[in-house]
Each structure stands twice: as C-alpha cells, then as structure tokens.
C-alpha cells in the first residue's frame, strides 16, 4: 500500500476518457475504412464483370474473323479445283503436262498451298497426277474422301496421313464426262493451312487450333491438350454461326477460357484457348495495385487516428493531472486555512479567559501581601496554589502559541539546520518513553548530510510527531518494537524516514491520515491535528510527505525536503 498524498488521484475519470477516446477512434477507423472497402469491392466487381464481358467479346470477334478466313480459304481452294474441272475436258486434264502447268500456276498464285493435283476415275484409280509424289495409278477406292466426293460432288477431307505419310487434306470435285464420273482432287499443304491458325495468338498463352467432329486435331496444338478436354469441348452443341465461350475451365491446376466457333459447315471447330490468368493479367495487375493502395491507405488512416488518439489522450491526461493538482492545492490551502482560522479562534477564546484567571490569581497574591497573615498556617499553601494557577495558565498560552505558529502565514525564522542533530535531540527527549515500552531505536544517518533551511522548532514539531506516532503505533502491539530513522541525500532532496513495526494503517484510512482532526486514537488521546500540522510544515518547505503502510507489518513515513542552494539561503537569511 503506497499512497502519495500529493497524487491522490481518482483515476476513474482518466480511464473513462481513455476508454471514450479508444472507442471513438475505433468507430472513426471503422467508419472511414468501411466505405472505402465497400466502394473498392463494388467497383472491383463491376469492373471485373464488364472487363470479362469485353474480353470475351474481343476473343469472340477474333475467333469469328478467323473462322470466316478459314471458311473462305477452304471455299476458295475448292473453287480453284471446281474451276479447273469446269473449264477443261477430261482429255486435257488427263494430260500430265497440262496438269503440271496448272499446278505450277496455282502454286505461283497461292504460295505452294497446293501440293499436287490428280484426276481419279470412277473406280478410284488415279489416272493423271502432277506433283512431287509418284502417285499415278494409286488406288483410292477405299479412301473416305473418294466415297464422300462421289456422294456429295464436292468434298474437303479431314487432315490425314494417307499414302504419303504426311499430314494433309484433300479438296475434291466430281465431274461427269461421257457419262462417267471423274474426280479432280488437289492436296492442300498442311503447313500453309496450319499457319493460318497458328497466327492467332494473344498474350502469352492464347492459341487456336482446329478439331474435327471426332475430336481429332486438324492443326497443331502447342498446348498438348488432353483428349478429355477436347471431347468435353466437342460435346458442347453450337450453331453454325454461333461463337461459344467457356470460362473458368479448370485443367492441370490452371483455369482456361475457351472460345469455340464452327467452321467447314459444322464439320470442324475452331477453338481458341487462353489461360484465364493470362487473359486477366492486366486486371490482376490493377487489382494488385488497388490492394496495395487500399492496404497502405488503411494503414495510414489507422496510424493517423492512432497517433491522433495518443496525442488527445496525452493532452487530456495532462489537463486532468493539472486539474487534479489545482484541486489538491485548493483543498490543501482550504485545509490549512481552516486549521489556521480554527487555531487562531481557539487561541483567542482560550487566552482571554486564561488571562483573566491568571490576573485573578495574581490579584489574590497581591492582596495576600497586603494582609497580615503571618499566623495563617495555610499561607504557604495559598502561595503555592496561586503559583501553580499562574504556571498552568502560562502552559495554556504555550499550547495556543504553538497552534498559532502553525497557523501564522509568515515564516518563523528559517535557519540552516542539520537534520541529524535535530533528530538526535528528539530521540534524547523521547528515549525514556521508548524504553518504558521496550522499543529499540535504530538510526541510519548519512554522515555529512547537507544542511537545509527551516525553522528548527517547526522541524522539531514534525519529527516529534512522527516519532511519537511510531511509538504509539507499536504500543502493545509488538513486544519487540523497533523504530528505524534513516536520513540520506537523494538528488537535491534530504530524505528522512521514520519506520515502525507496529500495527500498520488500514488502506481505507491511508488517504485521510493527513486530514485535520482525523484520528484513530481513543478520545482524549489524540487530536488528529499532528499529521495535518506536519503536512503543512513540510509543504511550506516545498517538500513532500509520503506514507507506506501495511497492516500487521508496519508503517514508514518518508519526508522529502528540498535542499536550498547557498545563494537562496543567503537571501532568506538577509530578509
């Protein structure tokens, strides 16, 4: 239990303010951050949705364009062959030189798109051929394209390896000459076709490829998609002109976007594929920047509020402490003033009647001298009694004078004092009393303790009070009573402490012990004014008095009296 008289604060007010500010700051943070987060999330949602739509639209457009290109390409190649079949007779076409000439023309025109040209009769035997492979008399009777072209007059085959063992596809036209069906066919170079699709590239991972109805790749697929994915995409039903988009398709730990368009009259599908992360990379970058801005912004807001609240708390703390101190000063001066007034009142009220008593006694003494009372046996006793009345009256005067010296505003002469000497005197005075109660007195004086400026009688009063209190506190409570008096210099103060191993002060009383007329001693034993006077005297010296007490352990009163610098002391002395 440690109470400092000067700092008796009710902390509840401070804590209330602190809690209030904390709550306010938390509310402020919430109300500032919530709208920012809300706006961010709403904005992000709408931005993402619209961006996703736009992106998909852009991809679909791209696929649409290429779909048309590929369809056009295929149609044109077919038209080339159609023209050849329509423009010339079978005799002309059977002439290999003639065929070679036209192949060269076509290759010149279309950059070696055409690999070779051949004419096949009704039985599937190639009767004429122009190209790099030796395919004259090759039998195509069992070829898929041969059967298809007989059925539908025009045909563009899927990509296959065929007799030559190279990926290629065939464009073929059926034409009747002399009531016999002949087929003019051309082989389209896979690479030149493939390059059309390969050119479709977006970002880092966006590529396109073509599959046929059974899911076989018609162009190279650089991404090595598994057939399961292709089958899945193939199962999606789409109209001939429709462009279909599949988003968020998870495969191999990644998410993909697929844009599908139908080509070659629904026989093939042009599929564009891109990793979702790649497609949305710009959005992701923007999002990352956004998150950083949001994060730093939030930290900034919280930091500013935190610092602001700390400043506010410090400000309130300070003003609260200031207020407390002023309150205490007002209370202190009020207390002192009330004690002073009371003391003066008592002094006046008592001194006047006592003065009359003494005068009356003196009057009797005067009259006794006038009378001839030599024979009166009690004359001596009268004189003794009158003297006693006078002496006791003077004693009353001493008591009231002490009260007055405490109450008086002006400082009773302060002189340089060695605290150790005064305490020694006090101990000498009270030794008898302590010995009677079996109390040991222990002193720990710092030798060479600097002198302080104070009134010796006042300081005596303080020390005597504290010493007597210590002895009273031990009383009959402790058979091995010990009073320890310590003096030391700490910083610019002289510290004097009186410790006892008495009964201690209950914490409930600690804050009141310096209040005037507060006493726990039995009626008639204590006035409750001693510690109040001590407090007043020490305060007047600019010092401080603290009490540390624990019930059943003991009590320590610690005085702290500031040293006065030599110059100040001289000033005081000359005043």
């Amino acid at each position, binding site marked *: 239990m440690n109470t400092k008289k000067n700092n008796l604060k009710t902390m509840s007010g401070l804590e209330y303010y602190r809690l209030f500010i904390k709550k306010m700051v938390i509310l402020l943070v919430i109300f500032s951050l919530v709208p920012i987060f809300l706006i961010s999330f709403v904005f992000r949602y709408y931005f993402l949705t619209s961006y996703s739509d736009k992106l998909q639209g852009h991809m679909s457009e791209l696929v649409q364009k290429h779909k048309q290109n590929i369809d056009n390409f295929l149609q044109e190649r077919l038209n080339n062959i159609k023209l050849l079949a329509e423009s010339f007779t079978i005799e002309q076409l059977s002439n290999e030189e003639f065929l070679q000439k036209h192949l060269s023309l076509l290759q010149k025109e279309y950059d070696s798109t055409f690999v070779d040209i051949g004419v096949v009769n009704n039985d599937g035997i190639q009767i004429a051929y122009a190209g790099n492979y030796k395919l004259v008399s090759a039998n195509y009777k069992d070829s898929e394209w041969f059967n298809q072209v007989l059925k539908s007059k025009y045909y563009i085959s899927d990509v296959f390896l065929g007799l030559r063992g190279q990926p290629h596809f065939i464009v073929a036209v059926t034409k009747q000459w002399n009531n016999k069906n002949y087929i003019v066919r051309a082989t389209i170079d896979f690479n030149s076709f493939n390059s059309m699709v390969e050119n479709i590239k977006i970002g880092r991972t966006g590529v396109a490829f073509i599959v046929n109805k059974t899911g076989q790749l018609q162009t190279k697929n650089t991404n090595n998609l598994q057939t399961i994915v292709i089958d899945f995409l193939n199962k999606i039903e789409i109209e001939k002109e429709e462009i279909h988009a599949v988003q968020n398709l998870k495969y191999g730990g990644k998410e993909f976007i697929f844009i599908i368009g139908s080509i070659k009259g629904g026989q093939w599908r042009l599929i564009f594929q891109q990793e979702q992360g790649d497609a949305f990379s710009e959005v992701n970058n923007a999002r990352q920047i956004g998150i950083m801005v949001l994060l730093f912004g939030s930290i900034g807001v919280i930091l500013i509020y935190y610092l602001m609240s700390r400043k506010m708390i410090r400000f309130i703390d300070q003003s609260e402490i200031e207020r407390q101190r002023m309150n205490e000063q007002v209370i202190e001066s009020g207390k002192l003033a009330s004690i*002073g007034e009371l003391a*003066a009142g008592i*002094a*006046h*009220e*008592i*001194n*006047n*009647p*006592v*003065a*009359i*008593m*003494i*005068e*009356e006694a*003196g*009057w009797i003494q*005067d009259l006794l001298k006038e009378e001839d009372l030599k024979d009166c046996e009690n004359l001596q006793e009268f004189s003794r009694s009158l003297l006693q009345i006078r002496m006791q*009256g*003077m004693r*009353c*005067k001493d008591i*009231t*004078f002490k009260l*007055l010296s405490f*109450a*008086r505003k*002006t400082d009773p002469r302060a002189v340089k004092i060695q605290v150790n000497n005064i305490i020694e005197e006090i101990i000498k005075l009270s030794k008898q009393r302590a010995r009677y109660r079996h109390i040991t007195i222990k002193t720990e004086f710092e030798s060479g303790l600097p002198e302080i400026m104070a009134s010796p009688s006042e300081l005596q009063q303080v020390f005597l009070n504290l010493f007597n209190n210590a002895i009273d506190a031990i009383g009959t409570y402790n058979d091995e009573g010990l009073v320890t008096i310590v003096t030391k210099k700490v910083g610019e103060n002289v510290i004097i402490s009186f410790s006892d191993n008495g009964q201690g002060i209950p914490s409930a009383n600690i804050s009141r012990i310096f209040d005037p007329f507060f006493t726990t001693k039995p009626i008639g034993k204590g006035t409750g004014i001693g510690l109040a006077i001590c407090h007043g005297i020490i305060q007047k010296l600019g010092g401080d008095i603290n009490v540390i007490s624990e019930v059943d352990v003991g009590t320590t009163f610690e005085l702290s009296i500031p040293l006065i610098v030599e110059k100040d002391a001289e000033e005081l002395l000359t005043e």
Partner: protein
Amino acid sequence: MSQIKVMLIDDELGFTSIFTERLILRDIDVVAVNTAEDAFAKLKEFLPDIILLDLKMPGMNGIEMLKILKKYDPAIDVIIITGHGLGLDREEAVKMGALEMLLKPIDINEVVKMIENAYKKKNMEQDFLKTNKI
C-alpha cells in the same frame, strides 16, 4: 517621581477590572476603557503616558486604533496586549509604531517593568529637549 498615567483599552471587563486594580497597587495611575469611543473621549482629559491596547475590540479594530493613536500623538507609547496574533505579528506591530506586542496571558511584573522603562525613556527625552534649547 509623579505617577505614570496608563490607559487600558480592552473589551474584556473581567480582565480590565482586575488588571486596573493590580496596576494601581503597583503605583500606576490607570484609566480603563472598554470601547474605542470611550478611549477617544477620555484621551484628551486624561493624557496618558502609556496606552495598553487590545487588538480585538467591538466597534474598532485595534490595528486601526493604533494608527489613529499614533497619528494623534506620535510620541505616545502603545503596548499591544492581545489574545491572538493572527493578522499581525510582533515585527509588524512594532513597524506600525507599537512599543511592544505581548500575548495574553501576560506577566504583570513584566508589563510594569516595560511601562516604567518606557516612561523613564520618555522623561529623559523630554528633559533633554527642555534643557537643550537651540
């Protein structure tokens, strides 16, 4: 030596009556008054050498009284006798012209000695002024 004339100004009747008797017994001519008005009324006819003045009185504060008395006759000797020293301590009283300030209860012999000394001093001063005219 003629009798010393002392005026005792105090509102405490119980005090003034006995103290007057005791002073008379000590061969001092005393007039006791209990109010400021009485004091001023008797001042001119009695012409005291010394005034014993209480600080607290009904009607007029002793401090004001002291000021007026010193104004009336700066040579007059005033000894303050009071039950309390609040508001005025010895040094202040002396500064204001009082000869001395005594706190009640007082020792009559001390007061008489003080009165006699003051009277002697005053007489010596007056003699000096009479015999040494420029």
